[in-house]
């Protein structure tokens, strides 16, 4: 930073940030900060830069924290969105123990975000929309009264429209649902098939809450008899019936006639699944399936054939008289003529199953027809602000969490070049440990030497592969009492930058969890937690991809602190 770095105040601040003795001197530190942010020559780039490296400071007391926040308040009203977002991030991170302050800050920057969302620069608008979605994950009602700002106009580029539709889906509530649905319905007939389908899926996801209105709209769309619309509507119906069984009746009434305008594999599979599972309530279900059976030879997608086998067998259980003949024909075809091995095996499997007797078939195939509990898995509602505060005003929300995970996986494993200390995402694991544990961690020898990388993401497959290829480097037993609260534990681990790969539900016996973390040299720590029902202790096994005892020890002590704290809270 040649331009800013030449200023004395900035040098002072940098020194202060590095030197714990100066950090301890609150007044001096306050002075430096005050001088830096009042620097007259500081333009918006300088301000953003200063806000960025203030992220590295951890206030000692509540009083000091609010003091700093007050000093920085004016940045929230800057006319440059970059500065406002930088300040917001700093506020969110500093006030991590004060949810009401965080909410307040997000309230204050609402205007700036909304203005950026309707900005003339499409690119800025896109970045702002991504951040709006991020905020909505934690505060679902935050933008609900401004829903009209997120209506699309036909001249906007595709990627903005898709983001806006997502935002609309997320901010819907009792008051605006009518207007939002009406707007979305307009998009469903858009000339761009992609956008139309995105709008239909959006209505489908709103339908999980406002079922009746949405199913009515979707049923009307079927009347258009257009291929690209019908196929998506049927797929939406399939998911909806699975999640909200109360709409089954309406869906079953809407289905007849759809088969004529569905050509693609996904749509056919959805329709056949619906006919198989709910065929009892659809009078012409056997005849539709019969058409599919007649044309099975010319069917190109093996997945459709598999779906057809299962569906027909299910329907056979509820309507045997109408289905027996064609089930026979289908099985014959699949076993004798089909070239795809998976389909053939499935056919043989069902054939043998039928040989075992009809009661056996019923026992196996009559699975539940819906599972409302899955809903919670899909939208993990109301994630805490702290879970994304460090990602705010970075590229993570712009890429989307999932894509970022794949990007940083490729980068994270390979790259361990020297990190420049003044980047936004940089935060050591030390200061991020909750206030109450701080002294304990600092007493530990060498705990400073270990720096766990934030935003470390490892996929489950990758974890499994690495886990199996490594030997256990360390095994230890910690005292533990009572049951586990996975959410609390996961959150606590996240604070110290340990990622949870998989975890049993609360109360499972034995209870297991798999964790992963990475330090700044690229060394991976893979951990298994095991809680046997009888023993009052938690067994941990740690594997490491580079044998380094000192970092391993400090990693274990971090883990011990977290587990100890969680254990303390409960006992």
């Amino acid at each position: 930073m040649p331009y800013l770095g030449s200023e004395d105040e900035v040098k002072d601040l940098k020194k202060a940030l590095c030197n714990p003795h100066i950090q301890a001197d609150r007044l001096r530190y306050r002075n430096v900060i005050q001088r830096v942010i009042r620097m007259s020559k500081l333009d918006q780039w300088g301000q953003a830069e200063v806000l960025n490296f203030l992220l590295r400071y951890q206030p000692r007391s509540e009083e000091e924290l609010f003091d700093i926040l007050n000093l920085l308040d004016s940045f929230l009203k800057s006319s440059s969105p970059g500065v406002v977002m930088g300040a917001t991030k700093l506020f969110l991170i500093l006030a991590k123990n004060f949810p009401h302050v965080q909410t307040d800050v997000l309230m204050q920057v609402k205007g700036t975000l909304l203005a950026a969302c309707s900005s003339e620069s499409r690119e800025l608008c896109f970045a702002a929309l991504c951040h709006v979605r991020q905020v909505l994950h934690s505060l679902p009602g935050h933008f609900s009264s401004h829903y009209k700002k997120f209506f699309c106009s036909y001249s906007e580029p595709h990627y903005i429209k898709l983001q806006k539709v997502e935002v609309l889906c997320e901010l819907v509530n009792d008051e605006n649902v009518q207007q939002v649905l009406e707007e979305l319905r307009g998009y469903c007939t858009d000339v761009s098939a992609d956008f139309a389908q995105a709008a239909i899926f959006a209505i489908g996801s709103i339908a999980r809450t406002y079922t009746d209105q949405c199913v009515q709209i979707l049923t009307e769309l079927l009347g258009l008899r257009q291929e690209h619309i019908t196929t998506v509507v049927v797929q939406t119906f399939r998911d909806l019936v699975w999640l909200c069984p109360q709409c089954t009746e309406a869906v079953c009434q809407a289905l007849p006639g759809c088969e004529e305008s569905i050509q693609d594999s996904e749509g056919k599979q959805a329709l056949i699944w619906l006919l198989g599972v709910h065929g009892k309530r659809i009078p012409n279900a056997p005849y539709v399936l019969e058409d599919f059976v007649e044309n099975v030879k010319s069917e190109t997608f093996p997945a459709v054939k598999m779906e057809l086998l299962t569906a027909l067998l299910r329907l056979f259980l509820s309507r045997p008289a109408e289905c027996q003949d064609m089930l026979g024909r289908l099985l014959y075809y699949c076993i004798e003529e089909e070239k795809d091995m998976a389909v053939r095996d499935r056919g043989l499997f069902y054939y043998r199953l039928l040989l075992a007797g009809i009661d056996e078939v019923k026992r196996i195939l009559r699975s539940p027809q819906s599972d409302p509990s899955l809903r919670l898995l899909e939208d993990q509602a109301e994630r805490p602000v702290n879970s994304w505060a460090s990602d705010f005003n970075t590229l993570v929300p712009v890429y989307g969490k999932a894509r970022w995970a794949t990007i940083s996986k490729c980068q994270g494993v390979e790259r361990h070049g020297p990190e420049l200390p003044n980047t936004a995402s940089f935060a050591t694991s030390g200061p991020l440990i909750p206030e109450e544990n701080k002294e304990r961690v600092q007493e530990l020898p060498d705990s400073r030497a270990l720096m766990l990388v934030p935003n470390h993401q490892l996929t489950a497959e990758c974890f499994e592969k690495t886990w199996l290829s490594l030997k256990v480097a360390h095994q230890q037993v910690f005292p533990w009492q009572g049951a586990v609260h996975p959410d609390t534990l996961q959150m606590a681990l996240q604070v110290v930058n340990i990622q949870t790969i998989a975890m049993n539900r609360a109360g499972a016996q034995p209870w297991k969890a798999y964790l992963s973390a990475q330090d700044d040299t690229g060394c991976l720590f893979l951990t298994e937690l095991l809680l046997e029902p009888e023993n009052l202790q938690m067994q941990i096994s740690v594997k490491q991809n580079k044998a380094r005892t000192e970092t391993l020890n400090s990693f274990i002590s971090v883990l011990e602190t977290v587990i100890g704290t969680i254990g303390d809270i409960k006992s």
Partner: protein
Amino acid sequence: MISQFFILSSKGDPLIYKDFRGDTGGRDVAELFYRKLTGLPGDESPVVMVTTGGGGHHDDRHFIHIRHSGLYLVATTSENISPFSLLELLSRLATLLGDYCGSLGEGTISRNVALVYELLDEVLDYGYVQTTSTEVLRNFIQTEAVVSKPFSLFDLSSVGLFGAETQQSKVAPSSAASRPVLSSRSDQSQKNEVFLDVVERLSVLIASNGSLLKVDVQGEIRLKSFLPSGSEMRIGLTEEFCVGKSELRGYGPGIRVDEVSFHSSVHLDEFESHRILRLQPPQGELTVMRYQLSDDLPSPLPFRLFPSVHWDRGSGRLQVYLKLRCDLPPKSQALNVRLHLPLPRGVVSLSQELSSPEQKAELGEGALRWDLPRVQGGSQLSGLFQMDVPGLPGPPGQGPSTSAPPLGLGPASLSFELPRHTCSGLQVRFLRLAFRPCGNANPHKWVRHLSHSDAYVIRI
């Protein structure tokens, strides 16, 4: 922190390429970027893209770009930086290049390659921003801009505002505003000009029953100054200008906006009392003030559309009668009005009856386009369109002949420009310069008002 910066033409030809850190790749990144951009799957956004170079692990980088007047301005970085700051920097660079080279475009950039490189050298050092102020930079820039043709103040053939992306508006003095700010060091006579634009973008949504669902006005006061910097300027706004819902000024209904933000160089000491903005603008372009207004418009909306749709399901004949009323004051007019009406799939033929000869209507991309080059305030125009839609099924459970519009028709959207009109009613009362020209004529001051549509949607 930026690793590389480059400018591509709309066809992907690299015009400018600058590597600041030498840490990643080579010149071929520009080509890589364009290939990625054109081959992007439909559901991914082009604004931010990532590339992971084949084997070398130092090859990962993010491309962040903006499109500006047909050019791609691209920055690459290998860090997880703030997208807002970077996008702002790119648009600031675009403005800066515009200030120095005249209006930004493929031609001007390729004529001024040396100047652009010189500017980039000063603005960014090792990928960090040093300064973007036109004022500071002019001390370091030696190269003069190459301008294609000499400017004439009275050349009214190609008219355009410098900021707003509008095609034509016969309000501004020609291309005078699009010349470089700092080119004519020797030629003092041309320097004393200042342009002040009040530009508003209007987005409106009207329900099918005519009720207003959404009005949103985004306004800006933009200044482009060719005056020597340091000269003070006072801009007087309408005295009835109120900010927020509760403030009340004057006796009339007032000009009300919801939120205002000012550029940091604006002094507001006279704003409370007299609605005067005082500033010492640097040379070049500057957004003095931004404001927003929603849901509560003082003047009537510029356009009302009265559609009537008759649809005979049996014969597949669709008849759309559109009546467009312009509610502007009689002296004003709207330019380049275009109505865009999406139609159901499978429309084959169009027959039209339009109320005046200069209008034009045609089918394209599954929509009807109706062009009205000029609409006078208070006037009413109409068009009758007949189309054949074979094989379009009706809404279920209704008779064969119905007036209910088929699905897939509408909503109609209008695009237009309103010169000399602001929807919020905000006007610039005066623009005073405290500048004493030495031996020169008085500076020319140009104040222009313009509204244009962002999204003006009418449901049918």
